[in-house]
Structure formats: structure tokens, C-alpha cells
């Protein structure tokens, strides 16, 4: 029944003939570039990014403002508007409702994408106040995605909405409320619930708790993780808070100036950051527990994306920078660290010459 609703081209084969592989990643982004066209020139907001999200995995995407992390996520879903243009790459989605046969998102037309959206990939927006339509009741905003994607009766939909709301800890009497009648924490929960109404395979979370206090943030994140375990979706978690990311993500990708500079298991990156930028970032967070460390931060300012110098974009702020760095072509390179695992960095200089656990090394590592 569900299969009938899927667009052609993303589920044409009947399930029995499927030769798909369920162990393949849910989302595979390759060579992905996004540019903002403007009269002053192209702003290369995302440049040649590779990233995969495996089934049931939480992948963290971290970086400073303007590093392109949101652009990457929204661009992969093709939700950016002009002057944004996808200039290169491929985004393959691969889920159980597509019989694990990859679907190339960049080739789908509007109506095909429309059927795939939310059903397969849903989004928790950053600002709950802005992501909810102020003139519609909560109930209508939760149900309208089901109207499009699920073939259920009105009562069944309502039941489902109530159960999803219950999962995020919102009583059902709030269904008939309008967004402005709810507190910030409640709105954020509603936005999370909204992303789960049609059982997506992948949920993109764009700084879902940034605006909240730590106590509420912790509660909501615990709920998200519990729901993830229970419902089995994958998460792309976007944040600028690296310590939070280390805690919640299985794998972490670090972005700088529109490019990926480091990808790896969160433990690898935590204990053995291989890119100077990652080291700097980790070194920017005061720790609440354990002995006090000397914190350094990263001097300098983020580069102008319209006018990137050749080579590594981090050169002006990097303490390991050498003349050779201007010739580096930004590519993720496997790191052979003491922890092993899948760990890649875009800094060949540090990797080749003096890769060792940096001075950011933890007291206990």
C-alpha cells in the first residue's frame, strides 16, 4: 500500500525482485557543491563535500557560522532557493521503501521529490517559532504531512498524532493550540514531533536545541535519542556545539569554509583530532568537568567565501601553516591513528609530518 504512493523512478521494482542492499548507507552525498549566485560573484557555500549517513546512525555536522553546514543539509534535500544553485555532485537516497535501490535526489523533478520529502527525509528546524505557521493549529500542522504521505482515515491520523505528541511529552489537549500559545520548549518538541509523524528514515536536525536552556536541551535530546532507538531512523545532527556533538553523535564531520576538513568516529575526533581546525575548535570549549585546561581558541576571522585563496582555506588561522599549504587540494585523507577506525582529515601536512595526539590531549586519554 505504501509502495503505491512512491514516485516512479524511486520505486519501480516490486519488492520480491529487489536486489538492494540494506547495509548501504541511507544517504550518500558525493562531490556536492552549492554556490550562491550574486552580481559580486559566486559564493561557494559548499564545495565538493562527501558524506554518508548509515542506517541508524547519528552523524554530527559541526562548524562555525557560515561554514555551510545548513546549506549542505538543505541543499541535499534541494530545499535551497535561488540564488542558491547546486553546481556539482550527487545525493543518493537509499531506504527501505525504495527497496534499498539508490535514488538520485538531484535527478528527481518537483513532484517526485515532493513524495519523497518528509516520508523519507524530514527536518527539525532550528527555530521552532519560525518553523510553525502562526495561523494554523498545531493539529493541522502535524496532520497535513500525513494527508500527503499516508493513506489513513481521519481517526487513525489523529491517533498517530496523539501518540507522536505523547512521545515528545506534549499532552493531547495542546492539539488545538496555536503556536503562539506555547512556550519555547513546547514549540521545539512540537517541531520534533512533526518530523516524526510519517516515520522517516532520516531526520535532519538543524541545531534543534540551540535556543533552549541546558536543562531543557538535555531533556529534549534524551528524548530524541530514545525515539531514534525505538523508531530506528538515522539522524544528521547539525550544531556548532562540539561538546554536545561528541556526546550525541556516532560519527562527526567538521566543516570549514564550505568544505569538510575532518570526518571520523566521535571518539577518534575527540581524542585525536587530525585537522588543526578541529583541534582549535576542541580547544575552544571550556570543560565543566575534569581538571581545567589551557584554552586557546582560534585566532583570526572566517574567510570570505567569495574570494578563497588557493589551497587550504584555514591557512590564515593555522599555526601549522607552511608555504606548501597553498598547493593543497582539499581532500579527505585516511588517518592512521592509534584508535584506528574510519578517520579522515583534509590536512596532509599534519598527517604526513607530525601527526600525533595533539597538545589538546585529554588528561585521561
Amino acid at each position, binding site marked *: 500500500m505504501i509502495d503505491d504512493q512512491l514516485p516512479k523512478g524511486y520505486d519501480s521494482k516490486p519488492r520480491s525482485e529487489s536486489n538492494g542492499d540494506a547495509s548501504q548507507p541511507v544517504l550518500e552525498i558525493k562531490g556536492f557543491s552549492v554556490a550562491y549566485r550574486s552580481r559580486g560573484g559566486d559564493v561557494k557555500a559548499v564545495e565538493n563535500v562527501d558524506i554518508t549517513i548509515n542506517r541508524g546512525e547519528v552523524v554530527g555536522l559541526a562548524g562555525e557560522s557560515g561554514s555551510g553546514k545548513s546549506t549542505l543539509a538543505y541543499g541535499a534535500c534541494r*530545499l535551497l532557493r535561488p540564488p542558491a544553485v547546486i553546481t556539482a555532485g550527487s545525493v543518493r537516497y537509499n531506504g527501505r521503501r525504495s527497496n534499498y535501490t539508490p535514488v538520485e535526489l538531484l535527478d528527481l523533478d518537483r513532484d517526485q*521529490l515532493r513524495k519523497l520529502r518528509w516520508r523519507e527525509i524530514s527536518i527539525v528546524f532550528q527555530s521552532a517559532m519560525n518553523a510553525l*505557521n502562526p495561523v*494554523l493549529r498545531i493539529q493541522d500542522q502535524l496532520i497535513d504531512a500525513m494527508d500527503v504521505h499516508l493513506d489513513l482515515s481521519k481517526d487513525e491520523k489523529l491517533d498517530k498524532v496523539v501518540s507522536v505528541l505523547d512521545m515528545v511529552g506534549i499532552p493531547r489537549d495542546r492539539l488545538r493550540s496555536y503556536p503562539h500559545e*506555547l*512556550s*519555547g520548549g513546547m514549540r521545539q518538541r512540537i517541531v520534533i514531533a512533526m518530523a516524526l509523524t510519517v516515520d522517516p528514515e532520516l531526520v535532519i536536525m538543524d541545531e534543534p536545541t540551540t535556543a533552549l536552556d541546558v536543562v531543557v536541551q538535555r531533556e529534549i535530546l534524551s528524548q530524541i535519542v530514545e525515539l531514534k532507538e525505538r523508531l530506528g531512523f538515522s539522524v544528521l545532527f547539525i550544531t556548532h556545539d562540539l561538546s554536545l556533538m561528541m556526546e550525541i553523535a556516532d560519527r562527526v564531520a567538521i566543516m570549514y569554509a564550505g568544505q569538510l576538513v575532518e570526518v571520523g568516529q566521535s571518539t577518534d575526533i575527540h581524542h585525536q583530532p587530525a585537522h588543526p581546525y578541529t583541534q582549535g575548535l576542541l580547544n575552544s570549549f571550556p570543560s565543566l568537568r575534569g581538571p581545567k585546561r589551557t584554552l586557546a581558541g582560534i585566532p583570526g576571522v572566517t574567510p570570505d567565501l567569495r574570494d578563497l585563496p588557493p589551497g587550504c582555506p584555514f591557512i590564515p588561522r593555522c599555526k601549522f601553516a607552511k608555504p606548501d599549504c597553498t598547493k593543497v587540494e582539499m581532500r579527505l585523507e585516511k588517518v592512521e591513528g592509534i584508535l584506528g577506525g574510519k578517520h579522515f582529515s583534509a590536512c596532509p601536512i599534519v598527517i604526513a609530518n607530525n601527526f600525533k595526539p595533539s597538545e589538546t590531549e585529554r588528561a585521561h586519554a
Partner: protein
Amino acid sequence: MAASNDNDHSLISRFGEIKQMRFLARRLGFYVVALFAALTINFFIPRFLPGNIVESMMAKYPSLKPSAQRALEILFGIGHNGSLLHQYITYLGQIFTGNLGLDLLQFPIPVIDIIKNALPWTLVLVGTATVISWVLGTGLGIIAAWRRGGKLDQLLPALSFLQATPYFFLALILVWLLALRFHVLPAQQGFSNGLSIGFNWAFILSAARHSLLPALTIVLTSTAGWMLQMRNVMITTIGEDYVLAAQAKGLSPKRVVFTYAARNAILPSISGFALALGFVVSGTLLMEIVFNYPGIGLTLYNSVTSNDFPLTQGIFLIISLTVLAANILADVLYVIVDPRSRTRAVA
């Protein structure tokens, strides 16, 4: 799972309640003050005018009987009956009983009766045309915003021209083209001579035919304005996160456009509607004069040119009241469309 009763919630609803009360009180206060302002302006106008208005009128209309002088003096509160305050109170009393005095030109027909004859023409014509142009303009604005850069958007300069064209000038052009050159439609008056006003087909058809040109004038000139406003607000609204969210949900474009974007974009248009009504009334006044249309505007003009002061005063008051009534209507509409304007405590 924890019962969710976030800390600021009760505060939010309480603030909401208080804001709501204040908002209501403010609107009510506004209506009361605006009403009194209209009445007071009306009261003072004859007093600002040079000379004794009643005597100059008596001189102008020799047919008036001395009894009329007394009536006029009461109406204008001029003469020898007490203080200004007393006059004002007498005047208010008269207004509230619906007594607007007697007309001079067609003495002793009460002013209110003349207004009663003229008002329906204007209300039906202007009301219908305004609603049509608002709906049309808003609809076109939605399309223009959705297909920005499209054909409709390229018409913007032409539409600005239409918006900038004075009502009466467009009316002149239309009369010249459609009535005088091509004789498609009648140019003057509200219905053909020889018909009597009543519920018969001959009259209704004639009235409809006569109203086409004036209606076309209003629609052409005011549609462009609504459209430009709606287009700009709509483009701004399309940039909101909730529209993007609707799109990310895979909702049909129809639902994204109407329920998410347009539903929000229309709010300023509604509150602008009431304010714009004043301009509409002004514009149609000129238009009625061009078409010699028997509405309230033409009646006002005639009363001014013939110094028929009681009628002028009465019509001005009626127009003010109509604009106020439209404001109330827009307020109610706004409350229906925007839930934020009717926050109440949630149990």
C-alpha cells in the same frame, strides 16, 4: 514521559490575556474617539465659515420660510440659544435621534431621506467593485509573487501606471472610449430616463448596464494597488521558515501557497483594507461626478456647489460613519483570520 507543563506557559497565556484586554480597550477607545471626532468636526465646520451662515442661506434661498430659519439655527447651533457647550449637546442629541435636519434645495424634505436615496447606489456599486478589486488584486498578487519574474511581474511598470492614474481621469478616458466613440455603454447616470426605481427587470438591467463603466473604473485603478501590496508581502512571507517547512513536508504546492504563505501574507492587506476605504470613498466621489452617477458623492458635490449646507453636513457625517463601520468590519475579519489577535487563556 514527563508531563509537559513548561514553566513560562501560564505566564504566556496570562500576558496574552492582558494584552488582549488592552488591545480591545484600545480599539474600543479608538472607535469612540473617532466617532466623536467626526461629530465634532461636523459641528464646528459651519462655525469656522465666515459670516452668519443661516442668514446668508436665507438670502440665497428666498423661498425659505421663516420657520426654516429657526430649524437651521438649531441644526447649526447658531443664534441665541445658550452657550457653545449647550449647542453642542443639543446637536449631539439631534444626531443620535437620526435627525440631520431639513434640506434647503428640496425644502422641507429631511436630509436623512435624501441620503437614504443616494446611499444604496454608492454602497452597491462601490461595495461590489471594491470587493471585486480586492479579491482580484490579492489573487493576482499571490500569483505574481509565486511566479516572480513571470509575465505578471513584468507588467509591474504598467500596473504602477494604472495605480497612479487618478480615478476620474480613467473614468474620463473610459467614457470617451466606450461611451462616446464606440457607444458600448451608457456614459451618464445610474439608470435610463423614463424608468422608475423599483424591483423590476427593466430597472435592474438598466442600473446594471449603467454601473458597468463606473465599476470598471474602480476595478482597474484599485486592483493594481492591492496586487502590488500583496505581491510584496507575499514575497516576504515566502521567505519565512514555515513556508520552507511546508515545502519540506512535501505538501502540495496549492497548500503551500494558500494555507502557509498567502494565509499569512493577507493579514496586512486586511488591516490595510479598512484604511484604504477612505481613499476608495474619495476616489469614487470624483468618479460619480464624472459619470453623473446618483450616489452619495455626486449628492455631496451638488450640495457643496449649491451651498446646501445641511445636506453637506449630513453626508460628511454619513461618510465618516461608513468608514468607521468598515474599520470595525476589518477588525472583526482580522480577529477571525489571525489567531494571535484573539489570544485567550488556555485551560
